[in-house]
């Protein structure tokens, strides 16, 4: 565990563990419910990648910005999002973060500086860069963190954003969640690079590779990048290598992955791995960890039930919020 573990302290370590367990439990609840046909849209599960959100969010200040991806449930939960309102959003109900109009892929929560998940792959990179520009412009030492996948780094928009962040030395942290696939497209087919963090070199700022299944390693890398950004040292690209436990979205059987490789990553599941460390270091007992699991399970049972019971938005909401000052709906809409 080393020095990072000491910095975090026992209570903090247990919170990191709990954070990962909450994300896993949220995702498994969503998974089961979706399969039963209870939720609209597409769901991209974060199971297996929890250490990244947990580790990064732990070093952010409350007023920093985050911008996330289509695989974004874990980020908002780790940032302090309310699972009740998240489930309501997944169900398309009024108590959701976007009043049920955004669903899984478009949750946004300004209350947590969370500028939105996004159905467009890699959108966070550009929007996050803009938020970082705002931080620098205001001079308030906030930072902006963008989350995105390996596939996203092949979009032109990624390269434009990183160059802008570099030339203006923006307090931007790019968290590249490399789960080694963009849908069915493996990293070896979509790029010549072994380490995608190398892309940062093209723009002249640090790129760091980290074990994305090791929450303390992620936390340490993020802490360093955030500190550098706050001091005016400019952006960092952190490549966290990880693996999604399920298919690309619920319904994708992920037959394109090698079962042996898949198993080897399941064996490195970040949650039990970190649990073992906590027990070995005497930070928690097995029984305490199990109790956390049970508490979280009960919390998520209640949260998903809350979401399910929330009402559907009224049809009048369909045309609201397209423009400012037009809460009643767009005048040109509707039918004759």
């Amino acid at each position, binding site marked *: 565990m080393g020095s990072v573990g000491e910095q975090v302290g026992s209570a903090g370590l247990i919170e990191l563990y709990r954070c990962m367990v909450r994300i896993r439990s949220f995702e498994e609840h969503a998974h089961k419910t979706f399969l039963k046909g209870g939720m609209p*849209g597409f769901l991209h599960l974060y199971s297996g990648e929890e250490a990244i959100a947990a580790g990064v969010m732990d070093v952010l200040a409350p007023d920093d910005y985050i911008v996330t991806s289509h695989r974004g449930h874990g980020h908002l939960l780790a940032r302090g999002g309310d699972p009740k309102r998240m489930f309501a959003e997944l169900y398309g109900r009024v108590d959701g973060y976007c009043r049920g109009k955004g669903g899984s892929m478009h949750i946004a929560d300004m209350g947590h500086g969370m500028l939105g998940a996004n159905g467009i792959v890699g959108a966070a990179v550009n929007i996050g860069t803009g938020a970082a520009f705002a931080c620098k412009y205001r001079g308030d030492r906030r930072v902006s963190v963008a989350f995105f996948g390996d596939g996203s780094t092949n979009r032109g928009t990624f390269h434009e954003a990183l160059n802008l962040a570099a030339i203006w030395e923006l307090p931007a942290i790019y968290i590249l969640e490399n789960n080694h696939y963009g849908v*069915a497209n493996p990293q070896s087919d979509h790029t010549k690079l072994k380490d995608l963090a190398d892309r940062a070199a093209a723009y002249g700022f640090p790129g760091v590779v980290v074990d994305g299944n090791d929450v303390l390693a992620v936390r340490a890398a993020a802490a360093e990048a955030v500190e550098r950004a706050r001091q005016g040292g400019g952006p960092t690209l952190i490549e966290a290598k990880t693996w999604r436990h399920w298919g690309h979205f619920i319904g994708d059987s992920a037959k394109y992955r090698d079962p042996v490789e898949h198993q080897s990553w399941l064996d490195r599941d970040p949650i039990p791995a970190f649990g073992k460390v906590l027990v070995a270091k005497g930070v928690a007992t097995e029984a305490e960890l199990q109790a956390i699991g049970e508490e979280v399970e009960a919390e998520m049972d209640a949260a998903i039930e809350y979401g399910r019971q929330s009402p559907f938005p009224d049809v009048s909401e369909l045309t609201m919020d397209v423009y400012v000052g037009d809460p009643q709906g767009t005048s040109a809409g509707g039918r004759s």
Partner: protein
Amino acid sequence: MARLNMVDAIDQALQQAMDRDPKMVIMGEDVGRDGGVFRVTDGLIQRFGDQRVIDTPLAESGIVGMAIGMAIAGYHPVAEIQFSGFVYPAYDQLVCHAARMRNRSRGEFTVPLVVRMPYGGGIRALEHHSESMEAVFAHVPGLKVVIPADPYEAKGLLSAALADPDPVVFFEPARVYRAIKTEVPEEPYTIPLGKARVVQEGTDLTLIAWGAHVRTIKDAAQKLEAEAVAKAEVIDVRTLSPFDYETVVASVRKTGRAIIVHEAPRSCGFGAEISAQIMERAVLHLEAPVVRITGFDTMPPLGRLEDYYQPDAGMVVDAAKALLKF
């Protein structure tokens, strides 16, 4: 004759065109190993190999931009965009280059490119995964815009698009993909671009739609007939660009009434163009104003709200009754 769904009909059209045309290349995200997220290109990489069915990185502008260069250099690329809502980075390439090459080079060269993409609602997704932005393509001179309504139409229209010398944007209504089967001949056939289809003849009013909503107006026509309200003529526009105003106008001259149905936002939707064409060419034949039943001027919403957003046959029937009393 085999009864196929639209996914299989398109797959078959692609396979037959690839068999015929050694210069044809399919490219896009997950079109090869995965067979496409909707399985439209299933089996093609096995048949044609990874040099002709190319899995690309996630890079829409890269895919379409490259396809344009390939087309000018003598190939016949077929690019897939995973959902039409992801096409906008490539819109730059389509508008600035694909559409203009023929004119820019004074006919010297052209871009025989087809960009296929699923579009439209009814699949319980939202925003980019459900939108219907065909009008922003139909507005671009130099692009052809084709939207099939059923499996038979899909095979014939796609086959024509694949043989067309100019760039074609081919919208596939995702909600129709597996919803209906029609008879689809095994032998290759084409349906010419720029020719609307009179699905059913009628005398009292003309119902006009494309894509998934051809089904809506067919259902409405059936109800109107069953209730002995009216005998409606049903027109599937098929290609928004070039638009076959002659078929539409001839019908409206006969019936004197027109209802246009689309799920795209109302303002500047393609219905506005059709309505204007009718006004310009058949105003003296009109018994009543042209009616549009459309989506709202907002983003396609999630879940239940979508039921309200989408036009349905009941709305068409109500509108028809009102029109007949006008």
